[in-house]
């Protein structure tokens, strides 16, 4: 596949940030293909991406209804494999991540011949809303304990892996528990993993993982591990 990197960006109601994110990702000096999965957005996200895709080469896929982040990532991965790829990158559309960090994650994956590299945030009380901080700490400890893997942050959506790894880590979760399922599967199949600290900005406290989705993630982790 000539080291082609598929960058998958799932998005749901991200009309304010998606074009900027695409612009930043597009600027990266990589042999890449950008795959955007609009997960049934109700705002102008889809039309904005479509407009953007008329002058930039990106693959745009659309879920007619909102299925959840896990399902959107799966659609992106399956499209990437159908089109042919060597490496797959996940990055969020809400500008929480810095696309420049993709280069560091890919470099670590290639240099150390790893199966998967996780971009981990600096989970700091001062930077994060308190509830998110406590929820993250709890889910990190639980997921690491159950998967026998050591990571500083398990809820980050930023990761890079090889296309062969996808067959092993392929998940069932449709929602946010996809991040935990990937880690549990990484442990289950003894995959070679690494982590790279990434920069993060917290913009919207009402979007993303809430207390209720945290509880759902907790139940899903137990389901994936024991059922």
């Amino acid at each position: 596949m000539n080291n082609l990197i598929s960058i998958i960006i799932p998005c749901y109601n991200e009309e304010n940030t998606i074009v900027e994110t695409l612009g930043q990702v597009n600027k990266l000096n990589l042999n890449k293909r950008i795959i955007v999965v609009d997960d049934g957005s109700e705002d102008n996200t889809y039309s904005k991406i479509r407009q953007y895709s008329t002058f930039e080469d990106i693959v745009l896929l659309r879920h007619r209804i909102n299925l959840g982040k896990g399902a959107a990532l799966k659609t992106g991965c399956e499209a990437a494999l159908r089109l042919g790829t060597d490496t797959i990158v996940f990055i969020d559309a809400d500008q929480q991540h810095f696309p420049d960090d993709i280069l560091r994650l890919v470099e670590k994956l290639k240099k150390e011949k790893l199966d998967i590299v996780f971009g981990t945030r600096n989970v700091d009380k001062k930077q994060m809303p308190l509830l998110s901080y406590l929820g993250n700490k709890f889910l990190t400890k639980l997921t690491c304990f159950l998967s026998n893997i050591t990571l500083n942050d398990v809820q980050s959506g930023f990761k890079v892996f090889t296309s062969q790894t996808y067959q092993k880590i392929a998940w069932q979760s449709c929602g946010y528990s996809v991040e935990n399922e990937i880690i549990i599967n990484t442990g289950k199949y003894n995959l070679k993993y690494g982590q790279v600290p990434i920069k993060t900005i917290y913009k919207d406290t009402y979007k993303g993982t809430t207390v209720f989705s945290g509880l759902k993630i907790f139940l899903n982790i137990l389901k994936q591990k024991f059922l």
Partner: protein
Amino acid sequence: MILGVQILGIIFGFSMVYLSFLCYKRKEFSRFQFLFWELLWILLLFIIFFPEVISNFTKKLGFIRLMDFLVIVAFMIITFLTFNNYTDLNKIKRNQEKKVREDAFKNLNH
């Protein structure tokens, strides 16, 4: 003499008879489903009106009061329905995900 709990049961039973009839009239139930549910509610009303009919049976099963028997049966039915709903919902979610993904791939160029 009719007890308070029987009055509640009778109100519930007749309400369910009416609701099942409404579902049939709105074509949400087939004739078979309508007859099944009506028979079930009529059986419930019959037991509420004449509890002594099954009291011998419940005593043989070790229940001292008929009410205990009804509560246990109700719990079993609710547990079964919850399990059934859970499996059906999972099936619907899987099918929905598959269809939505197929639709998303329609314009994907190989």
